[in-house]
């Protein structure tokens, strides 16, 4: 894209700047639209499982519901509690939202279509997702209120616990692909199962950790059944309790942008990303971005499905699952995968 802007007579640096800004907008704006629609989809799926109708009033089939909600919160007053730490109180939702958008820079949407094709892409994602906890922790502390504070402590402990096992799971995938670059990881899956299927997840050695990654990604994004940070029955609304209008909406948008990101990561790391699931020439006629979106939507459906069916974990069960089940298994799996690779690939 830089070359295209440079052909307009701009210098290379100016062209690079314009191309990057256009690239960021080309990801962020559709992402916002996707978040609006995915919130609608989430409510519809949840309603369908509970035998309700869900949003069906605003627009055809209620499709414009999220936009109506957005307009509503936009017009509301931002209330700042008098005891709150003003600056941090306002900056917390901005951090959550920004961090949720930043991670999308390294997601490959198609062959060669990626904003920043850096060779530590997966580490970048880990780094950015570890920043996500600050929005929650700062909001909990700055609200100067009991329940948000409890929620912030829970969130901090929960995210650190599950990041450890996510790190080990990602290492196994990186060992298999031989690179941290998400495009290389995707391409390494091309026809890797008997030359027919393109998916790490179908590899018997990687299937168990693909399931663990799915569960860990639910915990990492604090989705049900791990949504202890905003457990209504215990903590009112958790760290969002004192927030209103746009500052609340930013949390909301950031949370769903993170959920879509985790779905995309599941798709890219284990189920072939933008590659068609079967390595068969006619399927490549469909643009890669459509395959990626189909996989993201499939994973989002699983997320919604789990949210609608599984009851919330207790906090000690959550910690037990993270430290006593996932951590040992994922650590063992790193040894297993590296041992297998030493035996077969590098011997």
């Amino acid at each position, binding site marked *: 894209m830089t070359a295209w802007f440079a052909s307009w007579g701009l210098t290379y640096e100016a062209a690079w700047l314009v191309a990057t800004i256009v690239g960021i907008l080309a990801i962020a704006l559709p992402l916002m639209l996707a978040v609006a629609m995915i919130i609608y989809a989430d409510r519809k799926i949840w309603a369908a499982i509970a035998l309700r109708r869900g949003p069906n009033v605003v627009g055809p089939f209620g499709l414009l519901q999220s936009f109506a909600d957005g307009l509503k919160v936009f017009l509301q007053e931002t209330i700042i509690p008098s005891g709150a730490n003003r600056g941090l109180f306002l900056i917390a939702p901005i951090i959550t939202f920004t961090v949720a958008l930043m991670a999308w820079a390294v997601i490959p949407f198609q062959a060669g279509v990626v904003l920043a094709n850096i060779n*530590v892409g997966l580490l970048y994602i*880990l780094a950015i997702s570890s920043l996500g*906890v600050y929005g929650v922790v*700062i909001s909990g502390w700055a609200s100067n209120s009991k329940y948000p*504070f409890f929620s912030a*402590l829970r969130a901090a402990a929960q995210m650190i616990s599950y990041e450890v096992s996510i790190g080990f799971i990602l290492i196994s995938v990186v060992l298999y692909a031989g690179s941290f670059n998400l495009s290389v990881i995707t391409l390494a899956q091309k026809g890797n199962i008997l030359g027919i299927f393109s998916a790490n997840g179908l590899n018997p050695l990687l299937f168990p950790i693909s399931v663990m990654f799915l569960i860990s990604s639910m915990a990492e994004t604090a989705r049900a059944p791990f949504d202890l940070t905003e457990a209504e029955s215990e903590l009112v609304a958790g760290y969002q309790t004192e927030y209103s209008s746009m500052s609340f909406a930013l949390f909301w948008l950031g949370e769903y942008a993170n959920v879509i990101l985790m779905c995309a990561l599941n798709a890219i790391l284990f189920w072939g990303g933008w590659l068609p699931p079967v390595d068969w020439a006619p399927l490549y006629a469909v643009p890669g971005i459509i395959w990626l979106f189909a996989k993201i939507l499939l994973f989002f459906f699983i997320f919604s499905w789990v949210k609608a069916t599984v009851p919330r974990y207790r906090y000690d069960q959550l910690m037990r699952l993270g430290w006593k089940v996932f951590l040992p298994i994922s650590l063992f799996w790193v040894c297993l995968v590296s041992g297998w690779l030493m035996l077969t690939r590098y011997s």
Partner: protein
Amino acid sequence: MIQTIAFYLFATLVIASGALTVFARNPVHSVLWLILAFFNAAGLMILLGAEFIAMLLIIVYVGAVAVLFLFVVMMLDVDFAELRAGFVRYLPLGALLAIVLAVEIVFAIGAWSAGAINMGARIAPVASDVSNTQAIGQLLYTRYIFLFEAAGIILLVAMVGAIVLTHRKRGGVKPQDIGHQVRRRPEDATRLTRPESGQGVEL
């Protein structure tokens, strides 16, 4: 051009947020400024072309260490009057530390401008086609393998020590045994009796 702008931006922010870490009244603000300093230091690493180190800096320091700092500091009940009361008492120690640091900085600048020791020669030459993730891996797991493993063992010992110090057996807890719950059948838990009218049931 853009590197220069980025360098001065990151460097200014590192120094400014470092200073604010010290000067901030509220400990929580201090930790947050420290996190900003870490973050901008990672930016400087990227400018040096050490993207792997930069990402690790963020993952380890910002993502784990600073969260734990924040975790502890947030729960402190800070009394600002008491904080200021200790100022005179700790002044000599603080002054000593400041002098030592100032001398070190002078030495460092002097040594750097003299430029006698060629530190670059001690680093193994790295092929330019290898990304720095691979370069670090090759160096760390061959030449420095013993140091690397020693670091691992020290961390393991520290971890075991921390667990031993904080672990205590508590009596009277009823942990959930899922296997036991699943094994339990209706006949273990219920009993069907037909008591005569007016007679109770023995529990």
